[in-house]
């Protein structure tokens, strides 16, 4: 095989205000052969994006390449003239950014942007480029491939834009593609679809690629060769099989440990008896809520419909669903931030006012809301001592020495040292900020903590540590958690009970083990099979499954009548599912599935699907055939 790209002793530095050099990339070596996908994997701060951009002879403003060489087909791109570098960009090396929504120019049609680079560099004529773009739209399975080029970026969906960006990169037939976390911002269901499209075109075009990500499970699906980075240095590199199945370096193992196992029964944590009480901490009864207000008192946009949820003492209730399903809205209703338009709330068995301003101080103290982004949830102008001290003072009247002592105690609970008292949020790392965010709610000494996607913005290792911390806190204090996440594997490894929300309705709920064993609601099934597994070949297997074929490419739509999952459901009954609200079918032990199919029918369809998969695994089929 031919060597396409050689990175030799690459060193990149940043310079701060006082012109002091801060090394970001410290002597990195790796090679890329023709037709190969090399993954750069690491946490934030590992320098993976910086390295990948250097292959286009580009650095973000403020950074500078200080040493090493990058040979593209033998030519050192770092030493090339600016004009030559411009020629290489787009023509020889193409870049795909993390957020397609921001990287498409809002004022130019998609078609012009996709073909621009190929035409400018003289690779193709405008006519040829347009034709090739259309072929690529076909290959990437985009809707209306002959017309999508005439549309503007804001007129198509996020998942589609991400694939259009792949078309943009491929249009000029580059030797190398650089993909920078191209699926990180997407929902799991959309992620698979985009991954599949990428993999297919990379193979068909025989292109080489650098794939930058922090997600090992994704890497396992797409990479041939893996480079593990930490702090701007290579920790370990080898073939995908080597790294995934036989990691040797300590850091790689640590990354692997942080990957949560594929959701299945038996993972949920067990609750001890010591914090048990007869009355649930929080109850939500037949609740409907939304935003805005129509003259008849109903919300202008109804987000949640007819929700029943029980949060038992000392339990963790996981709320799961794609974005737009109303997960955060549910937490906001419980916190009293959004009064429901119908239904009732209870705290410890007593009625609880839907509007926060009508709740007593004690009620407010017992339910604490933890915001998703610690970056924005902590006031940048307050010291950590003030941030954690305020609830102590506000709810419990602590001041002076007493308050300080308690603050230190709480810092210890979240595994931080007393020095943090006098620091500002800006001086903390992402994980530390999230701990402070949790500590502030803990300081109130609550009965229920509502955690809204608290691990989503964190790297895998840091996120795993936060989950460990939450479990320890639950065991120690008996506080209940409502844990909202779009990541089923996180929820299933931590929650006692799971509530599956789809388009504002509970489609399935029950103890974690029950929810994760068949029979499933068809949506739960889709979610479970969409979570990438950290093994080679998973993507191909999954794409051949039946539920993928039907529902995956469609978005969440809130409907007033019928089952909202109707248009994505592989077993939907036309005429019934789209017109009547699905009945809640009780299984055992509080396990409930809302579906028009009976439990027997659901079980049958599970068996049928399993048989189909087994059959397919026996017949060797082309992985890209859908």
């Amino acid at each position, binding site marked *: 095989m031919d060597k396409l790209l050689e990175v030799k002793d690459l060193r990149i530095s940043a310079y701060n205000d006082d012109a002091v050099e801060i090394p970001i990339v410290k002597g990195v070596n790796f090679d890329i052969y023709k037709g190969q996908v090399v993954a750069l994997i690491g*946490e934030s701060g590992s320098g993976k994006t910086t390295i990948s951009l250097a292959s286009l002879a580009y650095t973000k403003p403020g950074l500078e390449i200080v040493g090493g060489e990058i040979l593209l087909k033998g030519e050192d791109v770092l030493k090339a003239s600016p*004009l030559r570098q411009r020629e290489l960009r787009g023509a020889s090396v193409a870049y795909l950014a993390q957020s397609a929504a921001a990287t498409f120019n809002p004022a130019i049609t998609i078609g012009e942007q996709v073909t621009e680079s190929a035409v400018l560099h003289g690779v193709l004529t405008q006519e040829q480029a347009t034709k090739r773009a259309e072929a690529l739209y076909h290959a990437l399975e985009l809707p209306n491939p002959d017309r999508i080029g005439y549309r503007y970026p804001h007129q198509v969906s996020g998942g589609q834009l991400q694939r259009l960006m792949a078309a943009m990169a491929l249009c000029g037939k580059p030797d190398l593609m650089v993909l920078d976390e191209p699926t990180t911002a997407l929902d799991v269901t959309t992620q698979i679809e985009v991954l599949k499209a990428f993999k297919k075109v990379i193979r068909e075009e025989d292109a080489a690629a650098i794939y930058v990500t922090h997600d090992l499970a994704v890497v396992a699906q797409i990479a041939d060769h893996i480079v593990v980075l930490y702090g701007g240095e290579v920790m370990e590199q080898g073939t995908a099989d080597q790294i995934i199945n036989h990691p040797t370096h300590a850091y790689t193992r640590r990354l692997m440990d942080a990957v949560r196992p594929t959701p299945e029964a038996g993972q949920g944590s067990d609750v001890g008896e010591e914090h048990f009480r007869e009355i649930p901490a929080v109850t939500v009864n037949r609740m409907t809520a939304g935003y805005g207000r129509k003259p008849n008192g109903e919300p202008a946009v109804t987000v949640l419909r007819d929700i029943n949820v029980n949060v038992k003492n000392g339990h963790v209730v996981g709320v799961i669903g794609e974005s737009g399903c109303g997960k955060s809205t549910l937490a906001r209703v419980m916190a009293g931030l959004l009064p429901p338009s119908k239904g009732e709330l209870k705290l410890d068995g007593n009625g609880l006012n839907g509007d926060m301003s009508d709740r007593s101080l004690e009620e407010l103290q017992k339910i604490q*809301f933890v915001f998703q*982004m610690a970056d924005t949830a902590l006031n940048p102008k307050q010291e950590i001592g003030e941030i954690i001290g305020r609830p102590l003072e506000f709810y419990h009247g602590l001041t002076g020495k007493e308050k300080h002592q308690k603050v230190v105690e709480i810092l210890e609970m979240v595994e931080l040292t007393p020095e943090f008292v006098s620091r500002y949020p800006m001086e903390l790392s992402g994980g530390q900020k999230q701990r402070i965010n949790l500590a502030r709610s803990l300081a109130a000494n609550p009965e229920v903590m509502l955690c809204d996607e608290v691990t989503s913005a964190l790297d895998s290792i840091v996120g795993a540590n936060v989950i460990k911390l939450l479990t320890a806190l639950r065991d120690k204090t008996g506080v209940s958690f409502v844990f909202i996440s779009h990541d089923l594997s996180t929820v299933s490894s931590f929650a006692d009970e799971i509530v599956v929300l789809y388009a504002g309705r509970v489609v399935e709920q029950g103890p974690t083990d029950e929810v994760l064993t068949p029979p499933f609601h068809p949506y739960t099934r889709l979610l479970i099979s969409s979570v990438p597994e950290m093994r080679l070949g998973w993507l191909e297997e999954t794409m051949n499954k039946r539920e993928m074929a039907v529902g995956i490419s469609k978005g969440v739509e809130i409907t007033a009548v019928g089952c909202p999952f109707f248009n994505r459901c592989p077993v939907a009954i036309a005429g019934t599912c789209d017109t009547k609200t699905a009945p809640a079918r009780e299984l055992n032990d509080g396990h409930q599935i809302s579906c028009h199919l009976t439990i027997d029918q659901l079980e049958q369809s599970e068996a049928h699907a399993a048989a189909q998969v087994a059959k397919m695994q026996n017949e060797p089929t082309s992985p890209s055939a859908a």
Partner: protein
Amino acid sequence: MTEEIVNEMPKGEEIVAEIDKFDELPDAPPKRRIKLTWLGKLSVVIVVFWVVIAFIGPWIAPFHEMDIEGDDSFLDAYDNFYLGTDHLGRDTFSRILWGARMTIGISLAATLLAYCMGITLGIAAAVKGGWFDMIVSRLNDAVLALPSIMLGLIAIAAFGSSIPILITIAAIIYASSVFRIARALGQDIMVQDFVEAAKARGEGIWWIIRAEVLPNAAMPLATDFGLRLVFVVLFISSLSFLGLGVQPPQADWGSMVRENLQGLSYKSYAAIWPAFAIASFTIAINLIVDDVSAKSGGSLAKKMV
């Protein structure tokens, strides 16, 4: 390559110890501190100089602002008339020192008053919202929809000109822009998660304003104060220049330019010096504001080939 790593790998317990070495990497370093360029530092000196003069000017001036002590009008510098004499034969240097108090004093008073009104109403509108916000904002839009000099002319046509009226007019006119900025800032901060967190805790409105909103609005409002002060200085000077602001014989930089304009044809610089005084003060403030709010704009543009 891989073989080497395998050989280097520690085994068993060593790995456990090894794992703890990989701490979470710190986030990006904190945002840059405010660092003044040499131009900015010079500007600070100039602004401080004029503010001090505004306080002590009358005591250190060689002559009284109204005394006609010179030998003739429109004379060049001589003896202890360091900048010559004006159209009545008064000492230009002394009048500039006296005028600092008038020009800077009136502007500062008007800007402070504008800030008191603008911030109170602006933050209140942002926090309260609803009909209160509606009414105040609409009224404010109407005031903003008029060129400030026109509002000044209309008001002076109606009330005549005196120092308290000048201060009030300028304060009301510029309170409308302060209101707009304070309201926008307040609204931005009010939707931040940390304010939502305070609300969810059950905090009262005053605590939220004092502890959450104001500390975060302070810096942008301080920079805006500088800009606003410049506008007020220009406004007051322009009115004085039109003969509708500070009335003679009191010294004010704007009216000094007007009075001595005819002197230009005799090559007298009596009109130029006060104009320079205004320019040095306002340019210096703007340079400081520019330094403080310097954005890294254009760093991407430098990457274009």
